[in-house]
């Protein structure tokens, strides 16, 4: 618990620090990163701790976004809008979770994909909410102390949600519930034998992740002020999955790093070439093929090897000292013998 609190405080400091040093455009991009990070972390939970690869996660992201835009025609209170998005996505993910949990692996992937496609077809085919053209809103967040309109304000607002999500996920995964979830992923029949019902734990995680993705989608509207059916596309779902893999499968913070790498690569590489997705694809393939984990794993790897190198150097020096001492002793012995 102490480690969790410490890492959360570290993260908070990092979030506070970014706007001090970054240019407005980098702040804008970082805001996008934080939203995508919440989204990717929630997917990372069910993928990396629950073994549930879902292509239905964009459904929840899009649902959160659509809820805010649709309701913002009538109310502008940010608590109501975010609350509604959260409740709706929780209910949706609970129901779809129950259905999807009957399958595992590739079948789970397909069932969740079906939910996304249903929402995509509904949102593009209906005349409500702009249909295929999408719809924009003028809504601004107001938590009771003025409209948040500046990009720095928006960054901090989303930063708060990001840190909260991180903390929540950390606590969840280190709690008994999270441990059981991981146990279910690693050996479902053993956990059943131990008397746990795996479906309950999986559905709970799926619902939690769904609500978090919904909040990410809702926050996205405060940044972009626009929804379109593309939010429900397979593309969005696959992007989140790529973020999880690039960042580090099976960790909480990895997907957030993946989101950062993804957004920055997307925006900077695209200035050089139209085929930025090719570069991203190559990185993705490299990460999957090498099976060494994502960015977070590589970073810890680098860290470990530095630590090891230092240890080695340290022990070598020690050995040198020992050798010198031994030599001295030998010399001394010889001297005494000769005497």
């Amino acid at each position: 618990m102490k480690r969790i609190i410490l890492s959360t405080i570290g993260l908070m400091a990092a979030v506070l620090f970014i706007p001090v040093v970054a240019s407005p455009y980098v702040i804008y991009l970082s805001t996008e990163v934080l939203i995508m990070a919440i989204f990717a972390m929630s997917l990372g939970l069910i993928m990396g701790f629950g073994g549930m690869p879902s292509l239905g996660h964009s459904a929840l992201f899009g649902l959160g976004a659509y809820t805010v835009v649709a309701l913002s025609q009538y109310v502008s209170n940010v608590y109501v809008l975010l609350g509604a998005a959260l409740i709706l996505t929780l209910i949706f993910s609970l129901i779809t979770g129950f259905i999807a949990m009957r399958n595992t692996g590739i079948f789970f992937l397909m069932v969740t994909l079906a939910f996304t496609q249903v929402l995509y077809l509904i949102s593009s085919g209906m005349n409500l909410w702009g249909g295929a053209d999408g719809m924009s809103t003028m809504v601004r967040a107001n938590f009771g102390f003025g409209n948040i309109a500046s990009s720095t304000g928006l960054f901090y607002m989303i930063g708060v949600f990001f840190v909260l999500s991180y903390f929540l996920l950390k606590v969840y995964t280190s709690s008994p519930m999270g441990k059981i979830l991981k146990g279910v992923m690693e050996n479902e029949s053993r956990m059943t034998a131990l008397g746990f019902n795996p479906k309950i734990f999986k559905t709970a995680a799926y619902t939690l992740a769904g609500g978090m993705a919904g909040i990410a989608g809702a926050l996205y509207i405060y940044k972009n002020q626009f929804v379109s059916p593309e939010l429900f596309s397979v593309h969005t779902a696959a992007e989140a999955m790529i973020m999880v893999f690039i960042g580090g499968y099976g960790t909480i913070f990895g997907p957030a790093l993946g989101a950062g790498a993804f957004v920055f690569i997307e925006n900077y590489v695209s200035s050089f070439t139209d085929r930025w997705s090719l570069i991203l694809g190559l990185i993705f393939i490299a990460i999957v093929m090498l099976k060494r984990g994502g960015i977070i794993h590589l970073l810890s790897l680098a860290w470990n090897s530095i630590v090891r190198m230092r240890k080695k150097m340290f022990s070598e020096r020690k050995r040198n000292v020992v050798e010198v001492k031994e030599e001295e002793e030998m010399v001394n012995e010889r001297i005494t013998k000769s005497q």
Partner: protein
Amino acid sequence: MKDKTIINIKKTMLTKLSVLFLGLVLVLTACGGNENAETGSETEASGQDPVKLGFTLSLTGNYAFMGEGVKEGIELYFEENDYKIGSRDVELLIEDDGGDPQKALQNYQQLTMNHQVDFFGGGVIGSIAYALTEAVEQDKQVPMINVVGSGNSLSWEDQSDYSWRIGFSSIQYAGTQGEDVAENIGETAVVVASDYVAGHEIATDFVANYEENGGEVLDVMWPASGTSDFSSYLSQIKQTDPEAVFFFFPGADGPRFIQQFKDFGLGEKYGLIDGSSVLNAPSTIESVGEDVVGGQTIAHYYPGLENDLNKQFVKSYEEKYSKTPDAYVVNGYDTGKLIAETIEQAGSTNSDDLVAALNDGISFDSPRGPITLDPDTNHPTQNLYILEGIEENGEVSFELLRTYEEVAMPTENPGYTPQK
């Protein structure tokens, strides 16, 4: 962190990885280097800052054929003018949005915040045009040229001083066709349109104008987009027995509908009127060939247009890309010309000056004929051409039947009853 496989990694793996990343970095810098070298030489030519023009176009995905056309047009225009507006150099920044409005918005932010472009363009599809117009209107920083987006309300309720259209609108096309069909084809018609927002808009505009000019719409049908078998709709058309069939199926549905319409033997009986510019698209002619013969469509540009500027334009485009230009290329070409004219008239790249210049009503000669940007609707007043597919010596081409000169966009929403 405590994963054993990771701790036990061999050093060779690390080197492999670093080589891989190094390779990627090299590729990236190579790509970037080229571009920088290009722009670098341009900026050095004169002492002034270059004019920065930023575009987000759909260069990948389903709408790539439209985005590519616009891009080629823009590049052709600036190449002909040595990448110069007046004495200032031009720097083109073109980003790909893949047909996704969310990505287009990101590109917009990148181009305005990171590159500080002086002029912006985009909107290859309707949803992107709406999203970008909303964004430029809120920021009021940079004027935008809507390169294709045809939604009517961009000239009415959603009009913005900062967003100007260079293509056409639904009502400009479908409204003109409504009038034309009533006068020249027949007094009864059936409407078949793809069941989504653009289809509804086009059908509404056609039906209202057709009926105003004495026509009667017998039936309106809404096949879902992606329909592959139109036989039930076609047999319904046969039973209704109209004089004209007006259809709107953009994308791959269009050629399928045209083909099945002919296969059903309806081609000889009823006039086939295309409201979605698919009849004369090169890809349609390639896939269904002579099935387009006898069908009529509307265009604001076609390559056979008789004027000197167009002859020159077709020639230089064919030289550069070895294919025939379409309406999207002209949209891109005119986008370049409009931006150049605006900057020259404004005398600066200050956004207020640019918007003021646009609001003075800019007109110029385009390969499509003379066009004027109407400041009341931010929409070009232009000639529209009714075309018919013909076959000559085994080759399919399009013949000009009638020209509607200087068709303007209605300044206010006429408030037609929506077709649903």
